[in-house]
């Protein structure tokens, strides 16, 4: 590399000599002693950096250390040693899960399929509902009436998963000699949608109803609250757009199609991409509270499977449980990053 004198020397005209360029000297100093410079900046501003410490520690201890524990999917469990000292077992756990034939891999593939199907149904049925609700909210011009509707539809979102699942359990519970079936089952029997016997057996014991119950309770819980984002996009549309469309003779449907839908499209796209990004994050809490041994066929997802393997069973299966989750999480992360990249390209807004 060629060093030019002018970079660090400057000509002092008054004295008629070359002197060191002070700015360049500082820059050189910073480059040479980068970490010293960092330490000085932090020491000078230590209060600000001290403020970061509790947050960083919380994330380090309880978000990043578990990721390190996840490495046990590559290690042989022996019950004593910490993860770092365990023997490396390579991909044997992954092989056990992926390669067919055993009970374990059958369960794994079933859980994988259920995870995808539950998310995909959520995308098909759960995703459009908030948008439709937001369109409806927009039709209600009286503020008082609209807030009443909003208060009512947001309400289920604030109930815990336990409360929600307890109510669902009671509403579709089985009938017996002591007490009748749940009120929703009774209504369905009354409408001839299900037979008396199915209702009496309890809908939550029937694998063919699990997905519907999961999605409907999800819509019941979240649709109102999720509509807030879309409603905000709709009320941001300028009234002049509607007026212009009306002058051109657009009826309600045409206004919907040419004014409202294009205006909220970017929001819809962003929310859709977010949704696709979290396609594999099926909430284990809700599934755990709703499923039972009878409905594993349709209800068992990856996180509940690994919950049973890792936390209910013996400690020897913890490695396999971690391996199952590792696959789920890596695919999930790729989906998030992919979705985010597409969002950035498509709308110049990245989500993170």
């Amino acid at each position: 590399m060629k060093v030019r004198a002018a970079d660090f020397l400057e000509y002092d005209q008054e004295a008629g000599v070359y002197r060191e360029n002070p700015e360049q000297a500082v820059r050189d100093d910073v480059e040479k002693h980068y970490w010293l410079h960092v330490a000085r900046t932090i020491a000078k501003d230590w209060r600000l950096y001290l403020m970061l410490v509790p947050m960083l520690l919380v994330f380090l201890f309880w978000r990043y250390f578990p990721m390190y524990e996840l490495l046990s999917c590559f290690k042989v469990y022996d019950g004593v040693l910490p993860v770092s000292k365990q023997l490396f077992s390579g991909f044997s756990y992954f092989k056990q899960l992926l390669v067919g034939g055993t009970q374990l891999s059958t369960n794994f593939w079933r859980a994988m399929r259920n995870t995808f199907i539950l998310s995909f149904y959520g995308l098909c049925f759960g995703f459009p509902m908030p948008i439709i609700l937001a369109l409806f909210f927009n039709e209600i011009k009286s503020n008082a009436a609209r807030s009443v509707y909003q208060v009512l539809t947001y309400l289920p979102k604030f109930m815990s998963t336990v409360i929600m699942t307890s109510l669902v359990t009671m509403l579709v519970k089985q009938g017996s000699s002591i007490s009748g079936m749940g009120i929703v089952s009774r209504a369905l029997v009354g409408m001839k949608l299900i037979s008396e016997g199915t209702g009496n057996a309890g809908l939550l014991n029937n694998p063919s109803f699990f997905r519907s119950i999961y999605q409907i309770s999800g819509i019941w819980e979240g649709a109102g609250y999720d509509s807030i984002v879309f409603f905000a996009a709709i009320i941001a549309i300028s009234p002049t757009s509607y007026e212009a469309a009306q002058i051109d003779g657009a009826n309600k449907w045409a206004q919907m199609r040419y004014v409202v839908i294009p205006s909220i499209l970017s929001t819809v796209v962003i929310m859709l991409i977010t949704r696709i990004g979290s396609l594999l994050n099926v909430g284990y809490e809700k599934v755990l509270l709703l499923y039972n041994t009878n409905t594993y066929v349709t209800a068992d997802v990856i996180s509940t499977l690994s919950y049973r393997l890792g936390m209910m069973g013996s400690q020897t299966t913890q490695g396999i449980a971690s391996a199952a989750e590792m696959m789920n999480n890596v695919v999930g992360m790729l989906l998030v990053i992919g979705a985010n990249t597409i969002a950035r390209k498509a709308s110049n807004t990245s989500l993170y």
Partner: protein
Amino acid sequence: MKRKLEITELIFKIISYTLLTAFALACLYPFVFAISSAISDRHSVEYSEIILFPKGIQFQAFSQMFNNNMFWNSYSNTLFITLYGTIWAMFTAILGAYALSKKRLLFRKVFNFFLVFTMWFSAGVVPQYLNYIATRTVFNTVGIQDDKWLVVIAMGMAAMNIILLRNAFEGVPSEIEEAAIVDGATEMQVLTNVYLPMSKSTIATVALFFAISRWNGYFWARQMIRNQNEQPLQVFIRLTLEQYTESEFLTSWNEPYAADSVIYALVVCSIVPILIIYPFIQKYFAKGVNVGGVKE
């Protein structure tokens, strides 16, 4: 032309009102049904005679529960976890978000990535479980025997809430901060006297997010708290439900009210506090979603 316009608009309005009313009632119905079933007599509950209004009013299900020590225990545990959990989470989140909102912070991007990465990738149930077990051991060695503190300190932090706070702090005009610094304010004084008052609504929103998630927390409390007396309300409700749905339990049921009424009464007791504060807070939640949903 004018006539046709009115018709389509009218049709759409009618559809909107009908379906919205139906959906709103569907949202409300389970709660009304729960209240009615909790205070109806045994015969009408067991023979599914309750549809909307209570029949043969009784309050024994409630009074039996109010006489149950476990219930009050779990209620106070939930209050404990909600109160301290929210304070701890707000303390760490506000300080961290404030530092992250400063442009002069070195490695700002690294720290931000450190947070955001946890939204992309989570370790999963089992590694988290092993980690909490290890943490519990450490806590016990240090002398914290009450597992509630583990729930309070180790759980419930969310990167999204910190990002909400950070965005709010970034929106505070720097002139005001500079004026405060010229007047001799320290870093902490700038935070408490300038930033906190100027982002009140976001702080309220985030505090409510934390508090609701603490109030509703179930899974990790059940896994991690060993002492039955330390369990929060949600766990108590779930355990009761599991017990009451067993048929052997039901056949030996010998009370003037139905076993179901107990579950419904518990559900009602858990949602009443939320129902009371809900009308006052729901506007903050709407705001929080708007800030977090599409921003940046």
